């Protein structure tokens, strides 16, 4: 079918155009990490000075590490708790279910500024205080709704008869979940995890309120730097992060299949 071929080619070209749009600012960010001017001034003059000075910037490096650690832990907790909750919302009918589903939206809808302030006051009031643990608490709570919404969207494509059939064949609840349900929703769980990572890793407002001197995350450092004394070291560290994550992701894609191929 010739038309199908042509449409498929259009599709491929379209995807590459979308990638070009998505990567345009990323490429500029990376280029500016090699530019002499700290104000993104052109013409472009090559330097690796910002990478050299980044190496000396302990504060930025430790903030980056904190961000990575918190994002990874957040991702793990959120995918586990979020998937469990989505399963419950998918499988069971009970009173107040609609309410529980609606409750997922306040954390997304209320500007993070307000949520962050609210957390600061509340954590301060109950003695949790500030610091990395408080940040982790906050990040998980912010990312959880995203995971539940995403996993639930995928679960809705799972025909309930499939679980029923497995049950009628004598599989217990755990077997049904691990052999039938989880493999089917895996792309959703992975996507949820990617969301959770993104929400945590780029989360600045809540981290900002909950961080203490020395216990900050990368976005907080970046924001503070933009106020005064911005340097392309920030572009440098962002570039390194993107390159490393890209390598990790492509490796994952090479060795681990998760697209839900049928």
């Amino acid at each position: 079918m010739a038309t199908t071929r042509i449409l498929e080619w259009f599709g491929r070209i379209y995807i590459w155009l979308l990638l070009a749009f998505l990567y345009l600012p990323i490429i500029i960010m990376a280029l500016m990490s090699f530019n002499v001017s700290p104000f993104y001034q052109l013409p472009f003059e090559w330097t690796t000075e910002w990478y050299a000075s980044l190496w000396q910037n302990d504060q930025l490096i430790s903030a980056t590490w904190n961000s990575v650690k918190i994002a990874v832990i957040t991702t793990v907790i959120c995918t586990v708790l979020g998937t469990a909750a989505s399963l419950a919302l998918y499988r069971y009918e009970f009173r107040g279910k609609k309410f529980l589903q609606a409750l997922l939206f306040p954390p997304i809808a209320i500007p993070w500024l307000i949520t962050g302030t609210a957390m600061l006051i509340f954590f301060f009031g109950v003695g949790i205080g500030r610091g990395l643990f408080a940040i982790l608490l906050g990040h998980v709570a912010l990312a959880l709704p995203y995971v539940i919404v995403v996993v639930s969207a995928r679960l809705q494509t799972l025909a309930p008869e499939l679980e029923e059939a497995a049950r009628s064949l004598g599989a217990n609840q755990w077997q049904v979940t691990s052999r039938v349900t989880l493999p089917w929703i895996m792309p959703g769980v992975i996507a949820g995890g990617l969301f959770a990572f993104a929400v945590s890793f780029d989360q600045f407002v809540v981290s900002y309120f909950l961080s203490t001197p020395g216990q900050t995350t990368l976005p907080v450092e970046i924001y503070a730097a933009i106020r005064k004394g911005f340097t392309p070291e920030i572009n440098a560290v962002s570039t390194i992060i993107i390159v490393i994550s890209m390598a990790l992701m492509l490796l994952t894609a090479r060795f681990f299949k998760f697209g839900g191929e049928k």
Partner: protein
Amino acid sequence: MRMPKPTAFLTSIAVFASALTLAAKADEVHVLNWKGYGADEPWAIAAFEKATGNKVVNDFFNSEQEMLTKLRTNPGLYDVVMINAAFNDQAMAEKLIQPIDVSKIPNYADISPDKSGSPMLARDGKVYGVPWVWGLTALAINEKSFETPPTSITEMWNEARKGRVVIRDDAVEAVQFGAIATGQNINDIKDMEAVKAKLTSLMPQIKTFWSSENDWNQMVASNQIDIGTYWSGSADRAKTHFKLPVSLVIPQEGAVAWLDAFSIPVGSKNVAGAEAFINYMIDPSFYVEWVTKVGAPVSANTKAVAALPEDAFNRKVMGDPAVAKRIQFQAPITDAQREAYLALWQELKVNVK
């Protein structure tokens, strides 16, 4: 995806959390200030730590309101806080800061009397703030766009500059700027309608609102703007340190002046360290190095300013008696005033759309 065992998982969180829990140690000086504002310069911290044996831990704020919130929600954490003199009164009233024993700060004696005698920094004969530096919110120009620098604030309204003017996104600053443009006292604005009309006519001129030094410098580096409100210290830093084509203009109509001072929060665990730090911050040797290496506002310490080269901006321009006559220092603002200013500013911003 493999799920980790719950116990191992919880332990790892607990370990992670406890390893990073924060505790203020006795020989640490916790400083709360703007980022990139002198007190966090690595060379300065190193010199201070070497001289006194105290370790400096910096924390930052992005607005005065946030600074107050940080003090309210972290009693006992900070030893030194940098407060704009116009906010000192509020911090004092809320009992966030304590009286300072200036006899423990040898450099205090050299502070210019008009700064140390500021009524904003004392109450009941006790000193609550040690003046550090002062500066102006005046105009700055892109040198590439002007043959001769303008002398009047009206240049902001010049039709030829349309779409190449910037102003800071700050209600109080905008209203006070409007007061100067209409020939009023910034601390006692009688004719608010005039200010509003003046700012309304400014809006179509504006390219964008800036909020940080970095915004300004980026826009001038890419030649997107001609003129705008700017801080004196930042303009000097842009010119001398970053080599950008920026120069400060103190318009004949006047400019807004501010005074920054150090205070010691209530509950500080290291008052001696705090005093030593404040003393170091107003020391001429620190100041000269700060100006030379980074660019800074004007020190409140007369000896520090005198230690600068004769033609230094902070000595020649800012020390000019003619300048002193036309600047107006910001006085405290009540919450009601601040909200009224914000309402006006928001209305202007919405109507311009």
